[in-house]
């Protein structure tokens, strides 16, 4: 009997959203992230809401599953920016994450502290943010990540090389068809030109059945039950691992409690573990348990977003491309100031969400409802960002830096 593992990996993140910050605020106020509590961009209000709707109920459910099923395991990635916000505004939710980790069956995955795209702009800054994150995870959870995921699952051969050189045993990526070709994501792979690194590729069809289609009444498979889902997985006779990667907020936020998503989660371990040989693995375990079946070559960057699976949702238009280039162009001057608050604000602006809010791809079709943003338009997002960036420049120049 072959062993078959579900590899459940959930990504937890909240950005520091920029408030309505105008040209008249630049060079006067430096509190870009401090919206009033009632406003659409209040980080505190949004965090408390997500904690209540998603983090607390989901963690309660997960802890219950960990207690009831010794075989149940999962992996989490949690960004530095959301950890800070949990510390400030929802300490009880942070405690519930700690409780999961102390079960010994929840693995924390490494990433950048600020959920940035720094890898594509500055390797040095990228490495600093990964180290910051490593330290924060150790301080809070007592773990040191052995598996890496980059922001937005943005992945290519170069990133694999970096992870290999830096001692990671595994890395996560989208199981995107042009990269996999005829191959299935349901196995362990190794990236091309690496020595010890293994690659886990998201099964996006199965993952999206839960993350996107779960509550869709028009979906032919609606309603999705844990029984049915387990059955689908069993049908792939030779597969070794089913990589179910998704945003943590799928539970309770993207899919509301009323959709039955918590019942699905509740029943999944029981249904899956009914069959002998079935198990749950954390990302490290699956890497230890299985030998790579093939090498994967990813010469260009693949992400887990959109139909294109590239970075165009973050960097595709002139507003996005120019702001991110301008932001990283200040790197050396910013770091040299040794001014922690300035460096930290600069890093918070690197969070990929800001660039996503500026995306105009979907806005064109008038499909504003599909547009996941606290701003009314991508232009509004851009204007706030550009003004905050002007203020960063101002603060540098105030320190005598010549720009």
């Amino acid at each position: 009997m072959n062993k078959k593992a579900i590899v459940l990996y959930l990504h937890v993140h909240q950005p520091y959203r920029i408030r309505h910050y105008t040209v008249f605020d630049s060079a006067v106020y430096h509190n870009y992230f401090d919206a009033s509590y009632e406003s659409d961009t209040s980080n505190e209000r949004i965090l408390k809401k997500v904690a209540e709707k998603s983090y607390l109920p989901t963690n309660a459910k997960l802890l219950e599953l960990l207690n009831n099923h010794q075989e149940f395991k999962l992996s989490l990635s949690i960004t530095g920016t959301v950890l800070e916000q949990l510390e400030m505004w929802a300490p009880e939710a942070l405690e519930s994450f700690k409780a999961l980790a102390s079960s010994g069956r929840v693995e924390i995955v490494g990433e950048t502290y600020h959920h940035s795209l720094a890898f594509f702009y500055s390797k040095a800054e990228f490495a600093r943010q990964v180290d910051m994150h490593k330290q924060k995870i150790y301080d809070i959870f007592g773990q040191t990540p052995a598996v890496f995921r980059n922001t937005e699952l943005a992945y290519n051969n170069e990133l694999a090389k970096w992870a290999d050189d830096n001692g990671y045993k595994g890395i996560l990526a989208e199981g995107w068809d042009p990269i996999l070709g005829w191959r299935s994501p349901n196995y362990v792979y190794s990236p091309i030109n690496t020595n010890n690194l293994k690659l886990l590729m998201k099964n996006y069809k199965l993952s999206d059945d839960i993350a996107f289609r779960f509550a869709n009444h028009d979906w032919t498979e609606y309603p999705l039950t844990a029984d049915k889902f387990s059955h689908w997985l069993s049908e792939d006779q030779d597969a070794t691992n089913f990589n179910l990667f998704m945003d943590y907020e799928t539970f309770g936020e993207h899919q509301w409690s009323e959709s039955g998503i918590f019942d699905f989660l509740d029943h999944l371990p029981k249904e899956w573990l009914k069959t002998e040989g079935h198990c749950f693995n954390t990302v490290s375990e699956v890497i230890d348990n299985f030998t790579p079946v093939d090498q994967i070559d990813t010469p260009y960057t693949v992400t887990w977003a959109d139909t294109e699976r590239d970075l165009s949702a973050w960097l595709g238009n002139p507003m996005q491309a120019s702001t991110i280039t301008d932001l990283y162009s200040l790197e050396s001057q910013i770091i040299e100031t040794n001014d922690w608050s300035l460096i930290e604000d600069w890093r918070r602006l690197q969070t990929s969400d800001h660039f996503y809010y500026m995306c105009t791809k979907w806005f064109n079709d008038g499909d504003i409802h599909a547009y996941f943003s606290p701003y009314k338009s991508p232009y509004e997002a851009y204007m706030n960002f550009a003004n905050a960036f002007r203020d960063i420049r101002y603060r540098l120049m105030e320190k005598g830096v010549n720009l």
Partner: protein
Amino acid sequence: MKVLMLGWELPPYNSGGLGTACYHLTKALSKNQSVDIEFILPYEADHKIDFMKVTAASKQDIDTFLLSGNAYDSTYFYNLAKSQSSNLNGLSLNEQVNLYEEAVASLVKDSQYDIVHAHDWLTFRAALRLKAQKKWPIILHVHSIESDRAGTKHGNPLAREVEAISLMMADRVIAVSEHTKRKIHEDYNIPLDKIEVVHNSIDINDIEPLDLDNAYKYISFMKKFGYRVVVNVGRLTIQKGLPNLLNAAKKVIEKAPKTIFLIVGSGEQYFELIEQATSLNIGANVLFADFQRGKNWRDAFSIGDLFVMPSVSEPFGITPLESVAYGTPAMVSKQSGVSEVLNNCLKVDFWDIDEMANQITSVMLSDPLRDSLLINASSEVEKFSWDNASNKLLNIYSKHTSEAMA
């Protein structure tokens, strides 16, 4: 189907968007073989229109006619009546309305039409008369109501009375936007389900091409030195919200000194706005170019980096679409109909001077913002067409003609 259209102006003798909208609506409707339109105007002129029959209600030429005031002068027609009808031996706007009503009634005395479609209050009395005498169904198309033209004040009570009675009597009311639909309901208690929204539009193919040489030489010259240009094209009247724009301009210029405001248009606020600009000490940056047509009008749009329409209340407002077609993105007030159909533009409350200044400055300081707005607005505007509007109208016509026959 024989359609009798009652309208006050058509291009090139239009004083604003009313004439343009009537022209494009009738042109799109005429593409349909079964539709036969006669359009009755209050004055006599050659409009070079071949897709419908254009008839003059009376013998007066356009210059004589305009002495009575234009389609937007409803609010002032008392004054015009006093100053102009006695001194210049012309008619007041009110007398023009009466004259038109009588003339239309006698013109169509022996004709048969299936439906009457009238544009704005000046023609509504004539439409009502036909409904009473001929029992033809009347569709009243509202391009603006009196409180729009008056700039959120009540305006002229006579115009309001005409609007109140005729909109109540109409078989169907058409509004150029949801914004106008709401205002018709609020001002005149017309039930919302009696009012159909037919948005104005633009056909990119109708846009006259630009030539290489821009007419605004000074501004072209200054652009080479890094200046950026904010353009407004419209009547200089209270409805258009220009005093707020100038107050915002003051703040913009403090942050982005290399900004020029080009104001194209004329109207009763002209001198008052010039005074305001000079007293704000931004006279050097604000250029008033008066009312323009043709090349000068087109070039005003094209020289801008941002077109702004800060109207207090704008039933539709077609200029931002024209601006995009000529290569300049737009900022519009949220109190405009066009903001309902154009996504890729900046939107601001007409009273929010700080935010207006913030958005304008942001564009002045950022070519990527300007370019992104333009690229995305252009692909949106390319898909626009008056055919959607004419299809909606055909639906409404057929509903009312079949009801009338039954």
